[in-house]
């Protein structure tokens, strides 16, 4: 292992890693019989369907287009007939607009390069790359689903100096990025090169947590061939993979409150995104599938699957030999930041990184008791906030105060709630505060 292991200085916790599926190679799951494609698959406005009921579509064909600056195209992940354009269930239990496709065969669009050859030369120039990434509907694969092309276009006056590739994967249980780095290392490095070219930077750092020595060594070996890419091992500490934490750890730069990483000359992309960029630019393949970890202590065969977007989660559960009887909660994402699912009819979307089947006994929350002023939450907050104060402000609907105390800087990592000895749902109230303060700010800006 190389020395010089870095970390962020403020706060953080050490949850059990439980990377049960770390040694399971990525398997491809069969195409579903019916694909449910929600229109809201990015952080911004939902996409607009451009196909009609009864249309035949091919894999990779554009079926919905961006409806604003922060919005993305959506391509059909399957081939077949559009059954209907209707509301479909999303992870929260609400109905959202989507497209349902009845799968017939697996007929790919001709423009997509399906060969296994690795294409090294980057033919496109910066502008063309960004255009390509926009056209192919790429979003941040770490979970926030921010459209990738927007990040590649720094606002006027700001210049990117570093590209950071986030291979930290600090969430316990999840291993999709880990497996991707092991199996598609070369593609990720080429993807990184493409992103560097798009941003016109010559320095890139791939940050990886120290609990993945195989991935670190593998990428260090491969990176010798690529100029300007440095692999940076990081200490195992949650939330090392937070954008701001990663920048602080790797470059010792601090993103100012309320500002984006570009303020300190950084652009951060996930390794999954780097891989998707390689596929989009070199192979002309839109974002139609992704790696999803299906794991849990009761799961017989914790696995990493390459899944088409729109596959119902039930199919993934079936692929790990069914739902264990001891399951108490099904979580979309990791145990720290993921949200409990209300149904298994929900499809895989561009931002799904994992499905965690939590055991009944560990899934139950402890009853809440009064705050004992131990200040543990303040101590572990990686953003230097005071969660006890913010949650109280949100609880009492004092949103002005929450705003003044910088609730919007909360990255929702959940460290405070994880560490709270009184089991106060701190993160719940912080999220409430963020929702309300965010709405207040938007209303104010509208006027």
């Amino acid at each position, binding site marked *: 292992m190389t020395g010089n292991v870095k970390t962020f200085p403020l706060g953080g916790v050490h949850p059990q890693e439980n990377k049960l599926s770390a040694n399971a190679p990525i398997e491809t799951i069969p195409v579903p019989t019916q694909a449910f494609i929600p229109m809201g698959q990015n952080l911004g406005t939902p996409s607009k369907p451009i196909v009609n009921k009864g249309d035949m579509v091919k894999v990779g064909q554009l079926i919905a287009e961006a409806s604003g600056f922060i919005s993305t195209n959506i391509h059909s992940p399957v081939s077949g007939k559009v059954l209907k354009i209707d509301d479909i269930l999303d992870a929260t239990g609400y109905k959202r607009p989507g497209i349902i496709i009845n799968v017939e065969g697996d007929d790919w669009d001709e423009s997509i390069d399906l060969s296994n050859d690795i294409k090294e030369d980057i033919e496109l120039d910066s502008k063309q790359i960004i255009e390509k990434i926009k056209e192919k509907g790429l979003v941040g694969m770490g979970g926030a689903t921010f459209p990738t092309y927007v990040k590649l276009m720094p606002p006027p006056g700001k210049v990117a100096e570093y590209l950071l590739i986030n291979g930290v994967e600090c969430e316990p249980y999840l291993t999709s990025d880990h497996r991707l780095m092991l199996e598609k290392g070369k593609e990720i490095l080429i993807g990184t090169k493409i992103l560097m070219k798009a941003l016109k930077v010559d320095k890139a750092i791939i940050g990886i947590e120290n609990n993945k020595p195989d991935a670190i060594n593998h990428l260090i070996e491969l990176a010798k061939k690529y100029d300007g890419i440095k692999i940076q091992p990081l200490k195992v500490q949650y939330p090392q993979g937070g954008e701001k934490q990663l920048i602080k750890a790797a470059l010792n730069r601090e993103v100012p409150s309320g500002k984006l990483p570009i303020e300190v000359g950084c652009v951060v992309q996930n390794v999954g995104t780097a891989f998707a960029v390689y596929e989009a630019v070199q192979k002309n393949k839109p974002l139609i599938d992704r790696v999803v970890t299906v794991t849990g202590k009761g799961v017989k065969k914790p696995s990493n699957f390459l899944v088409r977007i729109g596959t119902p989660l039930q199919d993934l559960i079936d692929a790990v030999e069914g739902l264990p009887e001891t399951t108490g909660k099904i979580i979309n994402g990791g145990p720290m930041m993921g*949200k409990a699912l*209300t149904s298994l009819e929900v499809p895989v979307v561009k931002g799904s990184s994992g499905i965690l089947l939590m055991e009944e006994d560990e899934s139950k929350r402890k009853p809440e008791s009064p705050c004992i002023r131990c200040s543990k939450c303040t101590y572990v907050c990686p953003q230097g906030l005071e969660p006890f104060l913010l949650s109280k402000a949100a609880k009492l609907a004092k949103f002005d105060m929450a705003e003044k105390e910088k609730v919007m800087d909360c990255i929702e990592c959940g460290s405070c709630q994880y560490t709270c000895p009184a089991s106060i*749902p701190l993160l719940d109230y912080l999220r*409430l505060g963020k929702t309300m303060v965010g709405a207040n700010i938007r209303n104010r800006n509208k006027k």
Partner: protein
Amino acid sequence: MDNIIIIAVAALGGLGLVAAIVLYFIASKFKVIEDPKIDEVEESLPSANCGGCGYPGCRAFAEATVKQAKDEKHLEGLNCPVGGNDVMQTVGKILGLEVEQQAPLIAVVRCNGSKANSPAKINYEGATSCTFAHALYAGEGGCPYGCLGLGDCVIVCEFDAIHMNDELGLPVVNDKCTACNACVEACPRDIIELRKKGPKGRRVFVSCINEEKGGIAKKNCEVACIGCSKCVKVCPHDAITMNNFLAYIDFEKCKLCRDCVEVCPTNAIHEVNFKPKKPKPPKEDSKPKEASVVETIAEVAADAAPSNENKEAPKEN
């Protein structure tokens, strides 16, 4: 010695005199002339400072009433919901104006998705806040329009008028309600509405705000409005409108004939404070009926779409 005392008294007295004169002139120069009626009106108000009138507290309401009475010579649009007609009459007397009698209002919870009617499919663990839960997920019963049962409305009530019924999992309004609107604003799903209290507290309303198609709504809740339009057809007063698969009874037009209550196949329409109807012995509206209801629903849901058949279908009842 004497000298010092005299000087001190004279100096202080002189200073006091000068200050008094200055203050007198300042006071008369910057005098705020306030209508004494404002104080009088404020005195007659309930002093609850609840904001139900739309003004920040009773003083502001008093100022607004006096100003409007002076400028426009009427008190239309101003109402103290807590004090009701009595208080508004007194206010009118003070200002020498006639005040129209207002029909008293009461908060109505338009959801009957109780634990029995809309059984929990998942368990919620987390912050006891409807606003938070609303942003997080659809609800334990699965209805994205229904009551979340975490009691934001109960917390904001200043009058002890709304309480959570643990058996139902729904809030229940009692007679202490003053229609101050606080719970209406607190509910993130707009379930609570202010409706006419009605003669002897009698009122008829649709206890559902689900705008989903009948089949979907029914899947999550036994007593959802499925948008079958039977009530619209049967209403002799044109009081019921159908929008997005949801019936709404206009309480200004409703004459409390209760025809709609009888035809509703899911018992989504509620009647409150009525005596049981005499002529039709087998009907008991307030109790959910088992088998027969379920049968009718299947049929109604099937032809709920655009079929305009006979005016009155419910022969099978």
